């Protein structure tokens, strides 16, 4: 004991930890110490961030908040408004989706929450709302996204929310409430009926407690859709002076974007879309060689490496398919690929590439 103390007191803390990790790796190679620790507790691994579903709380008839306790490798200081990747194994197969965090960031937190509405066609959302038992171990993708609330928040805000688009906004509202920094906030919240409004009661309570927060609920089954050119001036006369965050169904976001563009105020608008808009320049295309099987695929500059691999019958790893979760990452032995989102090119040998958002620029070889 005394010896150990003498050794540890001489070493800086991180050096010691590094030494322990190094020794652990030597003993567990070709695996990692995490692979053995995860046998004791499935969350004790930073190899792939995992989480345990603690609770599924019903919010409305078809929506629920899923409380997740993340394992090692998670940092709790996400920005309010960000989303995370969730990987759940159903019938043996991992399915990945992205969901906005509805919980406010808490550095000392132990859990995070997402709020999910079961969509009629949404097989995974339905599973999350209606089928997933507490204790289930899931995979997590770290928080990302730039639909976030700045700190401190701007003096005047407008939130335009449709349906389950409330989730990232809820994280923002909770954060401002908790920090006591609620500025002048107008929240326009549309849903088909009042009963289907997720978090309605909590928002009403927040509005009662915070003078700055004004809620304008709208049940579109009775009152019709919110039409910006007709209703916005009545709803929020000073909308031109406000920083705006909009989240909801695609058509709503399209209309919002157009409206703010016409007003020449698109700089003030922040949108959250959950579909990937791959408008970047395509690559030239080329032949992709899959090293392990020797299979090849000839592709044009618009086909992603992931699609090409699947077409060729390669068991490509994939996740969100929108460049978020990094599950699809594969090592490119040589060649060049271009990221469709921003035109960045990757051309280093043995570079890890995200196959779901990259296209080949000339021939390339993948280690799969």
């Amino acid at each position: 004991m005394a010896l150990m103390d003498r050794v540890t007191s001489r070493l800086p803390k991180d050096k010691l930890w590094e030494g322990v990790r190094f020794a652990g790796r030597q003993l567990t190679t070709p695996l990692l110490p995490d692979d053995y620790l995860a046998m004791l507790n499935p969350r004790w691994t930073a190899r792939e961030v995992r989480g345990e579903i603690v609770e599924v709380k019903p919010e409305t008839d078809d929506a629920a908040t899923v409380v997740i306790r993340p394992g090692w490798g998670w940092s709790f200081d996400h920005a309010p408004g960000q989303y995370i990747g969730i990987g759940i194994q159903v019938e043996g197969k991992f399915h990945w989706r992205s969901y906005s965090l509805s919980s406010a960031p808490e550095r000392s937190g132990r859990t995070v929450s997402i709020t999910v509405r079961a969509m009629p066609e949404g097989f995974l959302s339905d599973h999350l709302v209606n089928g997933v038992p507490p204790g289930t171990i899931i995979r997590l993708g770290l928080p990302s996204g730039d639909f976030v609330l700045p700190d401190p928040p701007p003096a005047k805000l407008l939130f335009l929310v449709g349906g389950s688009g409330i989730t990232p906004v809820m994280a923002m509202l909770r954060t401002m409430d908790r920090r006591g920094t609620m500025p002048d906030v107008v929240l326009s919240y549309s849903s088909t009926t009042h009963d289907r409004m997720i978090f309605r009661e909590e928002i009403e309570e927040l509005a009662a407690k915070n003078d700055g927060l004004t809620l304008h609920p709208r049940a579109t089954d009775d009152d019709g859709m919110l039409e910006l050119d007709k209703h916005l001036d009545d709803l929020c006369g000073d909308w031109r002076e406000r920083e705006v965050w909009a989240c909801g169904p695609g058509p709503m976001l399209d209309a919002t974007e157009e409206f703010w563009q016409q007003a020449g105020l698109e700089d003030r608008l922040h949108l959250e879309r959950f579909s990937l808009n791959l408008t970047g320049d395509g690559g030239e295309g080329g032949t992709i060689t899959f090293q392990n099987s020797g299979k090849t695929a000839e592709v044009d500059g618009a086909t992603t490496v992931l699609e090409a691999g699947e077409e060729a019958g390669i068991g490509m790893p994939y996740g969100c398919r929108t460049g978020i979760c990094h599950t699809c990452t594969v090592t490119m032995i040589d060649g060049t690929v271009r990221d469709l989102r921003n035109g960045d090119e990757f051309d280093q040998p043995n570079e890890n590439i995200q196959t779901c958002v990259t296209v080949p620029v000339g021939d390339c070889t993948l280690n799969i």
Partner: protein
Amino acid sequence: MAIADVQEYTHLTDEEVEQLGRELDELRAQVEESRSDHDAAYIYTMIKIQRRLAAAGRATMVASAWNRRTRVPGTILGGTMLGLAKILENMEIGHNVMHGQWDWMNDPEVHSSNWEWDTAQPAEQWKHSHNYVHHQFTNVLGYDNDIGYGILRMAREQKWNPFNLGQPVYNAMLAALFQWGVALHDLDIEAIRKMEKDPKVMKKQLKQIWRKGRRQAAKDYLFFPLLSGPAFATTAAGNAYANVMRNLWAYVIIFCGHFPDGALHFTEEEVENESRAEWYLRQMLGSANFEGGPLLHIMSGNLGYQIEHHLYPDLPSNRYAEISVRVKELCAKYELPYTIGPLHKQYGQALRTIMKLSLPNRFTESNRSYDREVVEQEVPRGRKTDAQLGSRRLETGSYSARATA
């Protein structure tokens, strides 16, 4: 000349061969569609058992090492557990995961693209020499480097050389040091000797082998023995025992796959313009199964179902048993041979071939259970490069990883 001209199945018309191919495709599709929870549970259970067995084996050796009375029995017990864990890891888990049998789960921790196994050969080189070269050109003379691994003469068509006289010795050495033999397999020592190897590739491969080999060796012969303190040597010996146990077992199982008398060899001409159905035929006729209970099959990575594995190298190994029932029915229906026998018999035949072929052909009689004349032009030693091999993989499979919801 196509593969369908080989005597064993000349009774089949082209249409019948294609029909067989369609039936095998259908079988594949059925298994793919039915992969579900219980398959995932199978591989996770195997991984769990293997890791616990390895941890328990190592802990037993280290814990028993500090007492003179427990040292030897503890090391034998722990070494046996570790050996079994290594066998399970290499055979049922590593080999099969790297084949992509579990890629459909989309689990990044159990995926062919990043699995590294507990043996000296780097996974990347294994996937090239095994998944690509061996599974694509199975038993094609001059193409499949697994016909004797460049060390042994395993087909009568392979040219005899006085070097082959030492085969019984090389064979024994290969068996005992199997993991190191496998580690050097993709390197192609013959090409290095002839100075034909691309120095850049060679440097990269050697570096990979050195790094992996060093880590593997340091674990078993330095770090774990150090944990045993005064019994350093005992634990090192226990680990060596575990490694040799795995080496011998893996060697025996692998030699039963394509070297029993019933497994056919093919020539370059026979695989020219090969169709997908003919590819299936070649895999069936070039492979040999062995019989056994479920435990034997698990410990041999289900390679006792070598025929099924070669037909569907990337379907989950726990399904090979049920697939074999259907494949046997198809063999009966099309009157095709299905090579199978007890493990000792299959290995005995392989061993006999090793001994016999150490001598030139004129001194020995062929034991092949099929009637084919030895090709007149002898296949020289040496390998083909990837560019010379070309691509011939026709079992593209219908694996679809597309999001379904």
